[in-house]
């Protein structure tokens, strides 16, 4: 199970929408061993491509050093698919090198609905996990709805107050 704050999820989705149709990527850092993602870092996609992403190597080193200094680790590693579903591709599986991370996939292929799913990827094996969103506020003007892979149907985000 991935538990994530609604404000952080909003920031990830906003990043994915902003970079569409190119793939967006980034991390959410959290204290080592806590399994709690608390600090969102939007990374540059050095490939600037609608079908591929790669963290810029210099930026990655800076961000990883910063996490070391703060006793953090990448709790979530996310990227977007802009024309396909939020499921790890063969590329994603083959290149997944952080066995402790939650790999979050965000699909922006539908303009009105954002599909969000989370996985563990270990030695080529993909295991999907539920996503639990906490601290969602009531927003009268919210029009964005999110769809979570393990939910039975689309979730109207503005109806999730009180979680």
């Amino acid at each position: 199970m991935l538990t994530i704050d609604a404000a952080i999820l909003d920031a990830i989705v906003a990043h994915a929408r902003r970079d569409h149709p190119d793939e967006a990527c980034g991390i959410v850092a959290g204290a080592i061993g806590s399994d709690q993602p608390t600090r969102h870092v939007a990374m540059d996609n050095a490939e600037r491509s609608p079908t591929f992403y790669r963290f810029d190597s210099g930026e990655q080193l800076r961000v990883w050093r910063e996490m070391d200094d703060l006793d953090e680790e990448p709790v979530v590693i996310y990227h977007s698919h802009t024309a396909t579903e939020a499921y790890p591709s063969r590329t994603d599986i083959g290149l997944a090198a952080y066995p402790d991370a939650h790999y979050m996939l965000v699909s922006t292929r539908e303009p009105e609905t954002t599909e969000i799913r989370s996985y563990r990827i270990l030695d080529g094996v993909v295991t999907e996990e539920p996503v639990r969103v906490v601290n969602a506020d009531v927003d009268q003007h919210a029009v964005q709805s999110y769809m979570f892979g393990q939910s039975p149907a689309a979730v109207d985000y503005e109806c999730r107050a009180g979680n």
Partner: protein
Amino acid sequence: MAIEVRIPTILRSYTGGAKSVEGSGDTLADLLTDLDSRYAGIRGRLITEEGALHRFVNIYVNDEDVRFIGSLDAKLNDGDNVTILPAVAGGALATWS
């Protein structure tokens, strides 16, 4: 001469869990050979069968990505810090292999 090498989580099975180890060598290639003599198999995770640095592994000498300073021929000096970080990459199309 001693060079500190920081090991990512996914490769710590080779170093008995150690986050950083010491090694020696005049070049990055020498250093990886030295590490492999004590941590057998680690070199094979970083170098392709053709003998090139793996495309999806980032290795830095101090703050420099070795791709910009000679790759495996990058010169090393006593006291340098070497950091190994698996690249974070992927995407919708299967183009990596």
